[in-house]
C-alpha cells in the first residue's frame, strides 16, 4: 500500500485544460432550451454506441477518461444504458447489421437528446463508404447534432465535439 500511495503522490495531477466549444462542428441548430443548458448542460450523461467502426475511435474515446483529459471533471460521464443518457456518442460507419440497434438505442434515449458523430466514418462513411453492408455516415440513420472528423479524432477533438453539443 505504501508503494501505491507513493506512486500516486509522485505522479501528481496530470490533467490538462479542457478545450472550448467549436461552432464549426455543429450540423443541426441547438435543440436544447436555454434553461436546460444553463442548469443541466454540463451534467451530461453519455452513451457510446459503436455502430461499425474499426475500433480506432474507441481507443480515443477511452483516452478521454485518461488522467490527461479527465472528462469526468467537467461533469460529463459515460453511462451503461441509453435510458440514462442525454447524449449519444456514435462511431461509424453504421453497418447495416447495426442499423436497427442504433435506431433502437436512439429511441430508448429520453428527450431532449443529442447525438455527436465521431470520426471520418461517422461523418461521411470514410474509407468504407456506403455499400451492401454499410449505411455510411451516422446522419444517414439518426439525426446528428455535431460531427467530429478525424481518423481517429484526438481526445481533445472528441471533448470539443461534446462541449459544442451542449453550448448555446
Amino acid at each position, binding site marked *: 500500500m505504501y508503494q501505491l500511495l507513493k*506512486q500516486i503522490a509522485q505522479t501528481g495531477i496530470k490533467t490538462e485544460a479542457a478545450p472550448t466549444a467549436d461552432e464549426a462542428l455543429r450540423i443541426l441548430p441547438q435543440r436544447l432550451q436555454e434553461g436546460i443548458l444553463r442548469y443541466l448542460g454540463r451534467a451530461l450523461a453519455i452513451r457510446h454506441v459503436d455502430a461499425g467502426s474499426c475500433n480506432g475511435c474507441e481507443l480515443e474515446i477511452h483516452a478521454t477518461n485518461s488522467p490527461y483529459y479527465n472528462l469526468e471533471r467537467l461533469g460529463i460521464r459515460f453511462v451503461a444504458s441509453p435510458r440514462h443518457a442525454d447524449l449519444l456518442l456514435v462511431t461509424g460507419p453504421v453497418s447495416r447489421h447495426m442499423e436497427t440497434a442504433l435506431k433502437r438505442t436512439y429511441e430508448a434515449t429520453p428527450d431532449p437528446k443529442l447525438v455527436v458523430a465521431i470520426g471520418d466514418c461517422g461523418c461521411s462513411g470514410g474509407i468504407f463508404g456506403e455499400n451492401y453492408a454499410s449505411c455510411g455516415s451516422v446522419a444517414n440513420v439518426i439525426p446528428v447534432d455535431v460531427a467530429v472528423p478525424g481518423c481517429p479524432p484526438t481526445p481533445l477533438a472528441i471533448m470539443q465535439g461534446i462541449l459544442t453539443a451542449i453550448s448555446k
Partner: protein
Amino acid sequence: MRLAEFPLDVQVLPGAMPAFRASIDASELRGLCQEARSQKFPLIALWGSDETQQGGGYALHLALALPSGLLWLTVPLAREHPRYPGIADVYPSADRMQRAAYDLVGIHAQDNPDRRKWLRHGAWPGGVFPLRSDFSIATRFPAAEDHYPFVKVDGEGVHEIPVGPVHAGTIEPGHFRFSIVGEKILRLEERLGYKHKGIEKRFETMTLEEGAKLAGRISGDSTVAYAWAYAMAVESIVGGIELPRRAHALRGILLELERIANHLGDLGYLGNDVGLSFGFFQFWRLKEDLLRLNAQLFGHRYLMDAIVPGGVAKDLLQSEADLLLDQLQKIQKQVTTLKSIYDEHAGAQDRFIMTGRLPPELAEKIGLTGFAGRSSGNRRDLRVNYSISPYRELGVQLVSHTRGDVAARVSVRFDELAESIRLIQMLLRQLPSGGTRIALANAAHGTAGIGWVEGWRGEIFIALEAGENNRVRRCHAHDPSWQNWPALQYAVIGNIVPDFPLINKSFNLSYSGHDL
C-alpha cells in the same frame, strides 16, 4: 518444389515470409488436414473465392502453418453447387470460418454439424453471396428479420442473460448469450458479425496501393500489423523485392510500439476491472505519453499509414530516435514499479488467479493463438518461429506461461511489453543507414502473395491476388480473433458472471477484425 512436411508439389511464393502455394483436389483435403493436425500444424485461415471470371468455378483456400513456412492450399470447386468436405471436426476453429465462407462466397462445407449462418444477419438474403463477382458492391436489399437460433441450456434454475450488441461500456458491438445458474456461467454463446461493413468487397474496388490504407483500418488497434502484412503481400506479388534494411528496422520499431501501447492500455483496464482504478490512471498516463510521442515522430498517434508497400512513409531522425529512447526508458521504469504494485495487490491477484482458465491441452485443441495462446503453453510467436528481418538479428525472447488464466495473460503482457522495449532499444541503437522506401514494379495479373505478421494480439494474415492494372482481385484478411473468440466461450465456463468483463478484457479480441 517438394515440401519437407508433406508429399506435395508446391510453388514457392517470393517475399519476406517463407510461403508455398499448392492446389489439391477436394477429395485430398480431409486426409491432408488430418495429417497436418496430427503433427500439430495450426490452421491460420480459411476463406473462399469466386473463380468464374477466370474460367473456373469457385475455390476454397486454407492457410496452414508448417515448420518450414506458410502453406496456402487452394481447392478448386465446381461452378454448380460448390461444396467440399468440412474440416471443423479436425480443426474446431474452422467451423465459423466455413460458415463465413458460405455466407460470403456460397461455398458449402458438407457434413458440418453447425449449418447456421455466421456473418450474414439481415443485410442480404440467404442464397445471395456478396463476394461473388456478379454481386455489385452497391446492391442494397431491404433490411430483413434476422433469425438466429441459440443453443438452449435446459435444467432447473437455468436462465439466460442476453447482452449486446450495444454493450454497457465503450466496447465494440457483439451479442453474448449467457446461460447461468445463480451467478455461475454454464454456457456462453457468441454472435458476431454486427460490424460487417463489406471490407473484402471494398478491396476489390481499389488498386494495390490504395488498399494499404483500408488494410490499416481493418482493426484500428492493430493498424501497424495489418499495414505491414498487407505491404508484405504486395511486395510478395511484385516478386519479393528486397527492401532497404532501414525500412525493416523502422517497421519493427512501429510494430513493437503498437504492442507496447496496447498492452499498456489493457493492463490499465485489467486493474480497473478488478476495482483498482489506480491501475487505469497510471497505465493510461504512460500510454498517452507514448501516443503523443508517436504523433510527434510518425505523424499519427496510432501509427496509421506509417507502413506502406515498399517501405515506411516517414524516416526517423537521430534526435527523434533519442527522444524515443528516453521515453521508453521512463516507461520501463514506471512499468516495473506498477508491476510490483499489481503483483503485491492481494485483491487484484485474488481476482486474476485461476479466473478464466484455458489449460494448455484445451488451448491446443481449440487452436488458441497469439499472446493468449502463449499464456496457455503454446510456444509460438512468428517473430521467433520464422525470424525474418529485423527480428532475425535481435534474438526475440519468447514469452510464455502455462496456467492459462487471467493472471497468466497479465504476466505475459507485462513480459512482452518489457521485451518490446528491449527490441526497440536494440533497433534504435543500431539503426542501419540508407533509404526507407523503394518504388514497386507493376503487378502481373493473377499473381498472389501473402503477408503474415505477429501483431500484439496474434497472427495477422493477408492473402492477396492482383487483378488487371495493379488492382486488387481478391484480398482476404484474417484476424487472430477468429481463433480466440470461440476459446473465450470455453474460458468463461464455471466462472461467475461478474468476472466476464475481466476475462474478456484479458483477451481483448477484435470485433471489427473478425466481422470485416
